[in-house]
């Protein structure tokens, strides 16, 4: 009656073995390490780099405990965090002698101590959340409307160019909110224009209107194209973040989309929030625009002080805007007034590279590389614009700032240099921002957390201690109260813990303090199943059932109750998962998983133990489940 077929025992044994195997890596701990990887495609990290690193560390007399070369780069282990910091500084100085021109990314890292054979089985420790290891956490909101507006502005420029090519006359193109309004003299021209739009700009949907005797076209971006633009904007911002985080030298950063318009960035180990935020959050978009009029000097075209003067008084010609170039403290002025075309030639997303350097006259310069399309656009625009000036604008939080407005010296292509107004440090700063890419849509921080390393250590200890002592208390009570069956219950509960940790490790879940609390709470609740079973067996015994029958009926009757109660707990867990973000989500994941593993361990595993021990005895006189006789 109380015998399991052999395959059930095998299943239990296999589950236990796998559980043990995948929980194991968590016990080895981690050592501080420094990771050196290549910051450029052209530079390879190989044995030579490894040798250079080792010589450098020996020269600086910094002891290290191991060096490992793999596909991601070289990792050097250190005995403690102090040495790790010193090691990083020494290596940074030796490998990246020129600031602003980093060839290697040197990051602080933690390396799992687990042996290679475990790693080859993909048995890896859980990640520790920020609240356990320290670091910074940012939640950004991406302004998606802004991405659409920018796209519309870009489109209106392209439409103008197209109309010019086809010699199609129009009375103006303007943007009103999310709509482009195109004005024409007569309906015939409008219909031609509409056909042109349909062919050349498939993402636009247009509508013909007659307003005040004027023939108009109203064009909007198609909803599906709108979605695409917004998705692209988020993706581009995420990849930009990745690049910028690399510049920060953080290993294991978390950068992921959350909801429709949010990006979560977690940088473990980073303590310098201000710097992290400066590099990440400089929501810099780069724009190249032609200067329509300036009062700078007659050696370049569009020298028109009268127009500038008029603009300063408020008469700004259509399609242009008045901007001042970055103020120069040395000259003590507020910058040069420039009339800029509103049409954006290029934005930062066409940029493939940027680096600081020096031109042939040893002036600081920024070298810019564009992609093929960007190069083509630049060539088309600059062919007719030699000796005109081109402004480079950095748009931060919607406020454009003219970084520089150099004179175009010749037709530009995929590669060109900006020289002139920089000092070497400025050039390095600008190139860093450019190289890291520029964000497609502006963002703002809506949530920020910093956890110091000491708090992280405390939290681990507290979480561990509360689980441990709670577990001990439950175990002692269960064994005292239910005797041998109490031992089985405790073993089942341990199995539950083991399986839960194993599944979390396999999922490579991030362990947080609420996660640890959820583990503890789940254990405290999971014992319910065993209590139900044990009480039921006692009850059956009391009512005169034979020992074997009491065990069988006890398990059977308790099963329905356990199932029902776990389903209701699961409903609450899933609701938590639904609202879940951050700490609550971690709690909910652990809670739900724990309920599922507890079903297996409390019912199958404990029954397997009971069956193994008592199932084969024909004449079982009593069940060691504590006192059941009341007389």
């Amino acid at each position: 009656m109380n015998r399991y077929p052999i395959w059930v025992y095998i299943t239990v044994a296999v589950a236990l073995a796998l559980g043990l195997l995948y929980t194991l890596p968590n016990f080895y701990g981690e050592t501080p390490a420094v990771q050196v990887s290549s910051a450029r495609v052209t530079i390879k990290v190989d044995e030579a780099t490894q040798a250079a690193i080792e010589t450098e560390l020996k020269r600086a007399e910094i002891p290290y405990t191991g060096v490992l070369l793999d596909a991601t780069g070289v990792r050097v282990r250190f005995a403690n965090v102090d040495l790790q910091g010193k090691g990083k500084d020494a290596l940074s100085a030796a490998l990246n002698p020129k600031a602003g021109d980093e060839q290697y990314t040197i990051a602080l890292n933690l390396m799992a101590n687990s042996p290679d054979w475990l790693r080859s089985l993909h048995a890896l420790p859980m990640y520790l959340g920020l609240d356990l290891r320290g670091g910074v956490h940012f939640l950004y909101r991406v302004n998606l409307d802004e991405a659409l507006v920018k796209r519309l502005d870009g489109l209106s420029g392209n439409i103008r160019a197209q109309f010019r090519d086809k010699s199609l006359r129009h009375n103006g193109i303007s943007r009103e909110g999310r709509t482009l309004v195109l004005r024409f003299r007569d309906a015939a021209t409008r219909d031609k224009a509409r056909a042109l739009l349909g062919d050349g700009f498939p993402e636009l949907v247009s509508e013909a209107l007659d307003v005040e005797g004027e023939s108009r076209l109203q064009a909007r971006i198609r909803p599906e194209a709108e979605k695409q633009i917004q998705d692209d904007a988020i993706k581009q911002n995420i990849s930009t973040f990745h690049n910028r985080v690399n510049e920060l030298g953080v290993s294991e950063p978390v950068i992921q989309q959350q909801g429709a318009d949010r990006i979560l960035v977690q940088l473990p180990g980073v303590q310098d929030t201000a710097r992290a935020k400066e590099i990440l959050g400089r929501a810099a978009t780069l724009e190249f625009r032609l200067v329509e009029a300036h009062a700078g000097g007659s050696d370049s075209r569009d020298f028109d002080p009268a127009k500038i003067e008029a603009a300063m008084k408020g008469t700004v010609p259509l399609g242009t805007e008045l901007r001042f170039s970055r103020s120069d403290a040395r000259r003590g002025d507020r910058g040069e007034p420039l009339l800029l075309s509103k049409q954006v030639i290029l934005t930062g997303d066409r940029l493939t590279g940027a680096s600081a350097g020096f031109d042939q006259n040893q002036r600081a310069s920024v070298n810019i590389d564009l992609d093929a399309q960007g190069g083509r656009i630049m060539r088309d625009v600059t062919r007719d614009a030699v000796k005109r000036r081109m402004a480079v604008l950095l748009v931060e939080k919607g406020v454009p700032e003219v970084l520089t407005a150099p004179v175009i010296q010749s037709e530009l292509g995929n590669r060109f240099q900006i020289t002139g107004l920089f000092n070497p440090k400025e050039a390095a700063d600008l190139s860093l921002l450019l190289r890291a890419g520029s964000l497609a849509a502006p963002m703002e921080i809506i949530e920020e957390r910093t956890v110091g390393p000491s708090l992280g250590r405390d939290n681990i200890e507290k979480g561990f201690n509360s689980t441990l002592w709670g577990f001990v208390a439950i175990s002692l009570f269960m064994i005292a109260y239910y005797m041998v069956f109490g031992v089985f219950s405790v073993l089942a509960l341990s199995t539950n813990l083991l399986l839960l940790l194993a599944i979390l490790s396999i999922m490579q879940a991030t362990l947080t303090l609420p996660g640890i609390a959820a583990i503890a709470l789940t254990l405290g609740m999971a014992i319910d199943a065993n209590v139900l079973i044990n009480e039921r067996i006692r009850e059956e015994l009391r009512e005169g059932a034979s020992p074997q029958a009491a065990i069988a009926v006890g398990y059977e009757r308790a099963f329905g109750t356990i199932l029902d109660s776990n389903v209701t707990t699961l409903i609450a867990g899933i609701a938590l998962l639904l609202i879940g973000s951050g700490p609550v989500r971690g709690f909910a994941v652990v809670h739900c998983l724990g309920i599922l593993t507890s079903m297996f361990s409390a019912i199958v595993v404990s029954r397997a133990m009971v069956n193994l021990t008592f199932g084969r005895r024909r004449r079982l006189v009593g069940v060691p489940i504590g006192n059941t006789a009341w007389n």
Partner: protein
Amino acid sequence: MEFFKIRRDIPFMRHALLFNAISALTFLAAVFFLFSRGLHFSIEFTGGTLIEMSYATAADTDRIRGVLQKAGFEDVTVQNFGSSRDVLIRLPVKRDQTSADLATSVLSLLKQDDPSAERRRTEFVGPQVGSELARDGLIALLVTAIGIVIYLALRFEWKFGVAAIIANLHDVVIILGFFALFQWEFSLPVLAAVLAVLGYSVNESVVIADRIRENFRRMRRASVTEVIDNAITRTISRTIITHGCTQAMVTSMLFFGGAALHYFALALTIGILFGIYSSVLVMAPLVRWLGVKREDLIRAPAKRKDEAVV
């Protein structure tokens, strides 16, 4: 060992009116405190900036408050957190100031004042995130409640679903009432605890409902009251032992978990204690008053059809 040697059924239902009066009073008190004092929401819900500092010696909160107020930070709350050396500083959301500037300037001010000050953590939450969280929390509560009612209605009978959810939402309101009365901080982990308690207390109701159904089958001649009394009496041992074990774990968190888990564990403690009471002494009388019958739980035999033919 055996704690519960109860040979005769305890007549719980005889005192049902009294128990329900008690819960109604506690419930009303909780609602009163919720409305009169309100919950003290953490910055996760309200938005704002929070800075936790650790000092080498016992921190002087008045002095810290003074330093900050002199520098122009208004509405600052400074309080000890966990130990006398740790301090929690809260700043409300300001429209024109970004998070970065606020936290950085507070940090540098405090470091100037006392070089031993070490930053433990900072947190900034925008006001928009906060209101979303509050909304999502309510949705989660509703989804859980509805889900549980539907499940219990399917598995048992709608009367059990309704009784269980009333009994357990009453627990939730009482937990919130405690948080309002003592102005304990209501944070995200506390919300998680409240929802976990909701699921957990329903466990209790399920165990009893299960027994009631079984008793209707076994005790053919017994009245509804006797059936319910018997069901409660026979599960009381399990109820108390299970809750005791869970409480052991929660108490351990209360003692060893430090400040971060303090309110989480506190919410669970209240939830567990009231959970026993509500599922035993609130849910069961409610089921009876909703008029549960043997036929509700045990499908009527197919005989009726034959009679109709005859």
